[in-house]
């Protein structure tokens, strides 16, 4: 009960209306969930439940996007009554809790989850560590954790929790906000209309720094979510596993935002593939796999944001994975893996340019800027933040992976170093004024 109240208070701090919407949706999901169990109309009730969640998401997040797109298609035909847009605030975290709502309803329908009590369900949807930006948790796992909370946190769990919190702060405050945020300069440059001749290195720096920024920001947030959840006795799933060490695009999606990939795999890719394969009697299995894969990736792109750049970003990844599947590419030797990892990183980076650009023109200008030859002598100005952010991120990744082990003494020194830097940056931010970057994924 207390956790539910705290979670709702936390959410209400952003906007009370958000909390009201979530509460209303939770009530509807609760009653649908109760009704599904042992009902002859379970399929239709589940469909209504899924549709309800998707509708809420669509109305708040995508309605204006589709209306604007429709308007731009109809505009040349001089329609006198263009569709009117909705003036709705986008509730923070809506992309996460609506999908969690779908997980719950489908779980009950598939008889993998028993209908939960109202408070348990409210907590599942609103649990504050994961409310804003995940990770996604299966309802079964969450309710199991909830009903088996330890009375007292073990020493090792406390240490692990504080380690996650510190790691999250270092990634978010030091790497994402203080160093890698310089990536945005390149995107602002690309957003300038016309073809202004900005330095090539500005865009090259932006290309690599944004890859670091989004990774540090999102994985930092996840660490904070997991650390704070662990302090309360909950083990939220890992969401990142050194994604930039992926040797292929498909492997990247097994290491990046793993809970989202798992969700789409569980609730879209597998059911749709199976259904189509059954209907076609396995005749076009490869085409179906690729087609469903493309659709899944496009929807993953759309899930990230209501803009055609996100859709194309998703399609880009769908294309990469499809090519990988078609060619059956799998690096065998060490140097192949290394080269493949390097190429994969850059292919993912190309996607990030689409992901973060305001529109396609800006993305094209960004790429054009990268391959132009302009003012290369500015290298000493553009290199330091990239090297520092990159080194810190690689170091943290190696520590998380377990490739780097340090004795307790070095760990203590590292802890103090991190605290000093974070304190310094926090004081600077406080004195400089409010300039904290919102979590990138918090906008979803």
């Amino acid at each position, binding site marked *: 009960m207390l956790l539910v109240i705290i979670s709702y208070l936390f959410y209400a701090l952003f906007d009370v209306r958000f909390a009201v919407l979530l509460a209303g949706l939770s009530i509807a999901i609760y009653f649908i969930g109760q009704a599904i169990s042992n009902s002859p109309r379970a399929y239709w009730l589940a469909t209504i439940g899924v549709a309800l969640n998707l509708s809420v998401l669509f109305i708040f997040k995508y309605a204006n996007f589709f209306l604007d797109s429709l308007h731009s298609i109809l505009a040349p035909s001089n329609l006198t009554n263009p569709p009117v847009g909705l003036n709705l605030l986008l509730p923070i975290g809506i992309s996460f809790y609506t999908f969690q709502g779908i997980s719950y309803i489908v779980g009950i329908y598939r008889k993998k989850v028993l209908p939960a009590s109202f408070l348990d369900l409210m907590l599942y949807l609103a649990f504050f560590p994961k409310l804003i930006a995940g990770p996604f948790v299966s309802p079964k796992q969450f309710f199991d954790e909830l009903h088996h909370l330890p009375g007292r946190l073990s020493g090792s769990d406390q240490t692990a929790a504080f380690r996650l919190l510190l790691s999250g702060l270092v990634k978010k405050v030091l790497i994402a906000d203080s160093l890698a945020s*310089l990536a945005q300069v390149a995107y602002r440059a690309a957003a300038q209309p016309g073809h202004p001749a900005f330095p090539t290195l500005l865009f090259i720096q932006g290309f690599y720094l944004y890859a670091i920024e989004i990774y540090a920001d999102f994985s930092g947030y996840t660490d904070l979510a997991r650390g704070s959840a662990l302090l309360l006795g909950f083990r939220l799933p890992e969401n990142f596993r050194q994604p930039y060490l992926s040797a292929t695009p498909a492997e990247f999606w097994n290491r990046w935002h793993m809970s989202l990939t798992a969700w789409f795999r569980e609730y879209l890719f597998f059911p749709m593939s199976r259904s189509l394969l059954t209907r076609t009697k396995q005749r076009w299995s490869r085409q179906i796999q690729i087609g469903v894969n493309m659709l899944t990736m496009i929807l993953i792109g759309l899930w990230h944001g209501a803009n055609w750049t996100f859709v194309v970003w998703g399609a880009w990844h769908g294309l990469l994975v499809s090519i990988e599947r078609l060619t059956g590419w799998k690096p065998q030797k060490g140097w192949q893996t290394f080269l493949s990892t390097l190429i994969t990183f850059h292919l993912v980076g190309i996607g990030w340019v689409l992901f973060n650009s305001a529109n396609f023109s800006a993305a094209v200008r960004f790429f054009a800027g990268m391959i132009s030859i302009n003012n290369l002598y500015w290298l000493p100005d553009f290199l*330091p*933040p990239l090297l520092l952010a990159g080194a810190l991120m690689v170091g943290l990744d190696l520590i998380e992976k377990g490739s780097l082990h340090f004795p307790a003494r070095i760990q203590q020194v590292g*802890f*103090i*170093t991190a*605290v000093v*830097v974070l304190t310094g940056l926090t004081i*600077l931010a406080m004195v400089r004024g409010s300039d904290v970057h919102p979590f990138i994924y918090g906008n979803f």
Partner: protein
Amino acid sequence: MLSALFNLTLGVLLGFLLLEGVLRSNSQLLLRGMALPAPIDAPISNRQYDVYYSDADEIFWRPDLFHPIPAGQNKLEAHVDYQTDEFGFRNTPPIPTKVDLVVLGRSISLGAQQPSPWPELFANRMNWKVWNLSQPGSGMDTKLDYLRRYALPRRPSWVVVEVQPAIDISQLEPSPSWLISSLPVQVLQYFLKPFFSPASFDPVPPIYPLKVDLPGRSIQLTCCLHYLEMQTVDAKTWQASQDWTFFSGYMNTLVAEARKQGTCVAILYAPSKPEIYFPLAINPDQLKPTLYGVVPLRLGQDGSLIADSEITPNVEELQKNALAGRNLLINYSRQQGVGLIDPSQAFTQSVLDGADPFMVYDSHWNETGHELVAKVAAQFFRDNPCR
């Protein structure tokens, strides 16, 4: 215990080192007033702010010297809207490939509190490509650093160095080598300022704005204490001081490095309010209240300028020393063969004509001041082509 202490010390040192590295990598994290390795405004951004009388820098530093401004009289003095370039300097991006003129200045040439600073007006007037590398608090060492890092790679025809004698040739201390060393002062100022101000230690009655009679008109004068203190120093004392040695050393290096590349150098003398208004005051007694809180400077044995409360400041001396800094620059420019852009006559004439070139409560130039400087600079470059 020793081991824990060692770990703590090492951790703290490494933390400071890492913090220093982060601040050097991204100057946007810095506070204004800290050492500036680079501009702190975000690159390629749009900035906007409004300036009211009550926002003035003079009021910020010594609010106790000013009568409260009635709400109805607190006018909007300027609306400032500007862009920053790829490095955060105040220029419309992108930086041109070939630049005719680079300006190395402080907040005045930056265009603090003004929508159109003189470099922009000059560029429009002359159709030159001007790159403004001015930053608030940019001392001679920073200007030299900017020359090397930013200006010279662009191979400009001219470099103009803004010199405000009261600040650029006074109590000059090179920027600290470590950025984090200036952090404690800034932070303490931020937290203690609401509770302590100079008035807490040295209370003076409010005196500004002060009515001063000039030939043909009267003005409401406001002055910054620091400029008045520097005006207690005559040219001879100034030239004998370490401050001048520091300044001329940096200036010589700057000129030599620019010339090595074929770039011509000119100094822009940036007059302050008391330097222009004090000599024009008909009745010196009207200026006496400005001496509240002014501690005259004298030459110490080691060549530094020392504040000496035993000396009583007097208005006549301040009037006499008004152009001491300017005269030093005239001599320097003649000796070194460096051009001098001197708007003091234009400023004086403008004041006598009833158009003040300074902001009302602030120490910076206003629109008139920047226009005058742009005009004088244009005339200078027409008369002195770079060979």
